[in-house]
């Protein structure tokens, strides 16, 4: 029964192929396309001017004409972002719209003007897609490579999707690199960035960075100048199931500034460890007035928010 054996073998083999997560950016692109098609100008049917035999021919011609006008209108009216491409020392100007891809090779770079809110510098060997270009949402999807975003706008107007996390601009400058699988690093140089994925959020201030891994999403943010042992232990905790041992290592080597990381850990460790993290944090500075240990350990959102805002002065 070699045929049946082959079929069973192939079935078993293909059963090992994972169902991959569709990137979030696809839905945004779909919405943009649907919005554009729904926004296309409607036409009120005119009164019939011709005798019945030619009516169908007229209708067909009119449909083609209207479709042509709609397609032209749609493409002409979609907001464009200007792009300055530099390749082998030569510079050229292009424009991109929602749905367009932008790719640089080893010897080229690009600078994208993001509406009126900022710029994105695209490094060599980078591929990204323009997803949304609305005034209330500017969104790109970074497939692989590196970008540097400089945004001057109210929070949550500029988004960078990757396969494993979305960087949400809170008024800032940052670099982000990612590979095709969604493994990447966010490095913030000005302001704040929220690094989000499926309900998990890491808040990354200037001077800090945050890794993201395929299937795991964004890790915990840390300052670039944190002790090496601290960073290694955090890496183990976030992506290698380091668990309690790695948290204890972090607590030994943490500095006051590393309360950024410890504050995030409060909601990411089990209650017994949470108390130890809390004690370490309060060893650097007392809990602000009005906040209580019990509410912190219960992860009361207003309490955590207030404490973060106080701690942020030392970050």
């Amino acid at each position: 029964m070699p045929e049946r054996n082959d079929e069973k073998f192939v079935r078993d083999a293909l059963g090992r192929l994972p169902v991959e997560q569709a990137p979030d950016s696809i839905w945004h692109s779909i919405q943009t396309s649907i919005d554009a098609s729904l926004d296309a100008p409607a036409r009120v049917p005119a009164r019939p001017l011709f005798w019945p035999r030619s009516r169908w021919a007229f209708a067909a011609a009119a449909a083609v004409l209207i479709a042509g006008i709609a397609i032209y209108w749609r493409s002409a009216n979609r907001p464009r972002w200007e792009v300055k491409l530099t390749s082998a020392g030569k510079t050229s100007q292009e424009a991109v719209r929602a749905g367009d891809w932008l790719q640089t090779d080893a010897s080229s770079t690009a600078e994208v003007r993001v509406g009126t809110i900022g710029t994105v510098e695209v490094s060599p060997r980078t591929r990204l897609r323009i997803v949304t270009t609305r005034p209330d949402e500017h969104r790109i999807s970074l497939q692989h490579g590196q970008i540097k975003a400089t945004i001057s706008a109210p929070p949550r107007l500029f988004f960078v999707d990757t396969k494993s996390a979305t960087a949400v601009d809170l008024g800032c400058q940052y670099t982000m690199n990612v590979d095709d699988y969604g493994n990447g690093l966010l490095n913030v140089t000005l302001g704040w960035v929220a690094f989000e994925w499926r309900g998990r959020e890491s808040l990354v201030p200037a001077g800090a960075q945050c890794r993201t891994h395929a299937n795991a999403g964004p890790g915990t943010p840390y300052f670039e100048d944190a002790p090496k042992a601290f960073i290694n232990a955090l890496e183990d905790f976030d992506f290698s199931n380091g668990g309690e041992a790695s948290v204890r290592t972090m607590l030994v080597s943490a500095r006051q500034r590393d309360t950024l990381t410890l504050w995030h850990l409060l909601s990411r460790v089990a209650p017994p460890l949470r108390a130890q993290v809390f004690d370490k944090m309060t060893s650097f500075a007392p809990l602000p007035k009005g906040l209580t240990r019990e509410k912190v350990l219960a992860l009361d959102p207003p309490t955590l928010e207030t404490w973060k805002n106080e701690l942020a002065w030392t970050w």
Partner: protein
Amino acid sequence: MTDREVSSEVIEACRRGDRDAFRVLYETYKNRVYSACLYFFHGDAAEAADVTQEVFVKLFAVIASFREGAAFSTWLYRMVHNTCVDSTRRKKVRERIPEIQTDSVASHEMQLLHSRDAATIQQAVSSLPPKYRVAVLLRHFEDFSYEDMSKVLNCSMGTVASRLNRAHKLLADVLAPLRDRVTAGGRDA
């Protein structure tokens, strides 16, 4: 397929142009459609994302014409199949293996995250001619019956069987080194 079918109420709401219902429909099928496209396009995530988007935009435009009583997933996958084939014809898609940059962060961890077997199997599927590739993906990745496959592929069940038979032989040859391990492990839960 029943566990992955959306309710008739959702489809009916989509036919009326309800955007929230369409989101529900999208969420139900997005990963399966994207994965099928990903494996069809040799693991090219960008191409898979493009085609997935195209499928759902088309779906939104034509769902009003979906006939009640027909299996929605069969109808949807016919659209997926046609869009994949159209895209291949249109763009003459290059056989692009995603680049692994030696200086990319955490690239050493990719091998931990993606089993070698899955990569080998994906490559083997990618090496099949499109008509065999679609057939094995529908049959063994999407669990379609021969009857549903014949509707999706617009051919007879005999043709489906013939394509599958040929695909099985080709894949069995290419994947022979994995046979012991795969057969011992069986189908993953």
